[in-house]
């Protein structure tokens, strides 16, 4: 695959954006897969967390089409187990924020099923993660 110069620049910008938002060194990841092995939500992801780490290292914006960072429950299991000390939950948050800051909400408050029975702790945490 050949990548032209414009594409390289675009990728660099995306990498820098994720690094700045997350405060993490993405290139610390050496693909050991421990984050994916321990992730409690991994069975519902279309790309496992270590795969997302590789895609952001490559500056591939197609990573934003994956559901991984929405399915992430911010449980920090990957953070505490990463042998390179990368806070992967912060990388997931950065990807969520890139979408949310474009006014692209993931959850439509009006369409929530059974909202009456949900406690406020569930609703507030959900809206904090899924709406801008």
């Amino acid at each position, binding site marked *: 695959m050949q990548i032209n110069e414009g594409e390289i620049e675009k990728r660099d910008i995306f990498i820098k954006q994720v690094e*700045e938002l997350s405060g993490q060194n993405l290139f610390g990841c050496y693909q050991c897969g421990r984050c994916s092995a321990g992730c409690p939500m991994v069975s519902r992801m279309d790309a496992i967390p270590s795969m997302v780490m590789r895609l952001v290292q490559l500056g591939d914006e197609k990573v934003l089409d994956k559901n991984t960072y929405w399915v992430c429950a*911010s449980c920090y299991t990957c953070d*505490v187990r990463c042998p390179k000390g990368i806070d992967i939950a912060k990388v997931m948050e950065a990807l969520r924020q890139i979408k949310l800051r474009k006014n692209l909400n993931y*959850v439509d408050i009006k369409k929530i099923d059974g909202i009456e029975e949900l406690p406020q702790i*569930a609703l507030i*945490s959900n809206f904090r993660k899924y709406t801008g």
Partner: protein
Amino acid sequence: MKIPYFPGCSLKSDAAHFEQSAIEFSKTLGVELVELPNWNCCGTVHSLTTDDIMHHLACVRNMVHAQELGKQLGTNKLITLCAMCYNTLAQVNELAKKKPDDLKTANEFIDDLPDYEGKVEVLHLLTFLNNYVSFEKIAKVVKGRLNGLKLAPYYGCLLVRPEHVKVDDRERPVLLSKLLGMVGAKCVEFPYAVECCGSYHTVNLKEAVIEKTYTIVNNARENGADAIVLSCPLCEFNLDKRQKDVKAVYPTFEPMPVFYFTELLALASGKKVNVNAHYVSPENVLRKYGL
């Protein structure tokens, strides 16, 4: 001893029995939990992006109230009960210490209150009981015993992660087992003690939470527990109230009652459990152990 205490939204509604039992039990130890004046929502989840100071403001405001009340009471401690409140407040407190520039920005923005000086110590009640009261003293003060009630201690995510705010070992925590063991309960080995319950997915991805609850409750039973004990109102909703949805998907599923740890401490010290506050009634389990 009077200590400032931050309740949070759930303890004033769905988890009122959590607050009530904690206040009652603390009294038996000579500790008065003094509710923060003018407290506001903690935000429930900590904002993880580096530039998002705005979402830390709610916590900083609470820390200012804790600082001012603490000055009156002669303490720098703030006690929380809800695991989510604990985590959010503790993470912002850490950030205030590590990033003085961000704290300055927050202080400048909150112009109707004194500045937060970054000196409050945020404690979960479990840590407070362990470090400042001691479990041995609790065992002496509490007259009753839990008659060998078999429990699966469930910590979830936010009491043990991330590293800089954990209350105990993040893979094999023992605080709940030690504390409840001191008052006569028997905590079983429970591999799912620090597994996520699905958290806020309960709103838009209920199926994921149903799977998690099914696995966690069944595992607790396989390990010999008769009830689950925890400290987070969202985990409580997912593990207790969502059992109704689990039953709808898995008809052979056997429900299991879920307690807040303070309910059991209060029970051990002679108070009654408010059985109506539970979705899965704990009456049969309590009867089985003569409680």
